[in-house]
């Protein structure tokens, strides 16, 4: 069912079709956040995400004449974004964990003001970002669309051009793998945590 946003998008698109190019800026303003976040979670690089988001909007503008007048702009735009990011990742596969660390730096800061909590928060987000980068591109985009963009399985299926069952399976596999990886990381962290009582033995430079 069409939402008010869909109707508003179509009104803007009609204006662009009539030659009011600047009206497209309203669409960019509305969707720059979701498109940028999708690219950022997929690439873990702020610079790449900005470039890819720009490329997405440029492609959308150039392809706007092919947009169906009764279609929904948001899934259409996301399909372009997903394909753009997918092509980029296939050409430039990220190397871990160097990319991870850089990606974690690019992620937005949490709301906590306590420096200790902020550090823990950052570590946790870095772990999630890293685990996310270890998923296959298809699983990663399904997880990102589902949990960062809050899309329904139907919308994910439409964006990724796959049946709903496949979209659901990708999300399931992705979340299953993420869960396993994060549990392993938690275990490793627990092993590396310093004991509560200080040990008097020298640590021989171990980290």
């Amino acid at each position, binding site marked *: 069912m069409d939402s008010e946003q869909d109707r508003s998008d179509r009104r803007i698109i009609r204006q662009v079709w009539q030659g009011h190019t600047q009206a497209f800026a309203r669409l*960019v303003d509305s969707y720059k956040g979701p498109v940028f976040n999708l690219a950022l979670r997929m690439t873990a690089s702020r610079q790449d995400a900005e470039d890819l*988001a*720009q490329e997405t909007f*440029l492609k959308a503008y150039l392809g706007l004449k092919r947009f169906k007048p009764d279609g929904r702009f948001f899934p259409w735009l996301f399909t372009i974004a997903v394909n753009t990011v997918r092509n980029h990742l296939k050409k430039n596969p990220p*190397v871990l964990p160097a990319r991870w660390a850089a990606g974690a730096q690019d992620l*937005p800061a949490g709301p906590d003001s306590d420096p200790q909590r902020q550090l823990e928060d950052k570590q946790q987000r870095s772990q999630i970002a890293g685990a996310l980068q270890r998923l296959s591109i298809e699983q990663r985009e399904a997880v990102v669309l589902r949990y960062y963009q809050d899309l329904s399985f139907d919308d994910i299926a439409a964006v990724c051009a796959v049946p709903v069952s496949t979209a659901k*399976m990708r999300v399931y596999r992705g*979340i299953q793998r993420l869960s396993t990886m994060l549990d392993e990381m938690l275990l490793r962290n627990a092993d590396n945590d310093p004991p509560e009582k200080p040990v008097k033995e020298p640590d021989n430079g171990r980290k």
Partner: protein
Amino acid sequence: MDENDSRQRHPPAEAEEPADALPNFEAQQAFGRVIEQLRAEPAAEPAADFTLRVMAGISEVQSEMTDAATAARQLKKRTASLLRYLTETPSLSDIALCFLLAGFFYFLLGVIFFLGIQNLEPLPETAGWLRLQPQVAMLTAGVLGTLGLLLLLVAGGFALRLARLGTIAYIGFSVFNGIWISLENTGPFTPIGLLCFTAAPVLLGLFLAASLQRYHRRAAAG
């Protein structure tokens, strides 16, 4: 950590399991924590001037597209006018001008050959016909120029017949000239030389012949 281990490892492709058989996995406790963590992640914002940069990119692309469209329109217009010129019946003075221009072209070619041939001392003795190309070009210039002047000044059926004969002789001689040169000189560039010495003059001759033919048809039709 081993460097290879640090690279992205893709899991095997997902098994074809019917998704309907999946339980409501999002409600499962094992996944609940991860899903909560993912959903709790704050959204990132692109740079403040993001929209401006996108719109600037669009303007740039649009301007390039406008330039390309203008160039395509101009090319189409010029092609259409050239085609019109090539297919419309020319006047006798137009044809005369074509002959004079062709003659002038051969005159320039002859001058270039005269100047250039001096640097071709290492040419083999057998390449006698190639050495004669400056004279050949000048002779052709003279013939075409005279035909042009005849068409312009004398006009009438005699000049037209002479021009037609001269054009046929020019085409025949061009083919003979190209073949003779290629027979005298063998080398890796011989086919290219043959093409240059034959194709261009033949095309020019056909153009002149077609112009004369169109004029003759119109004159015959009254």
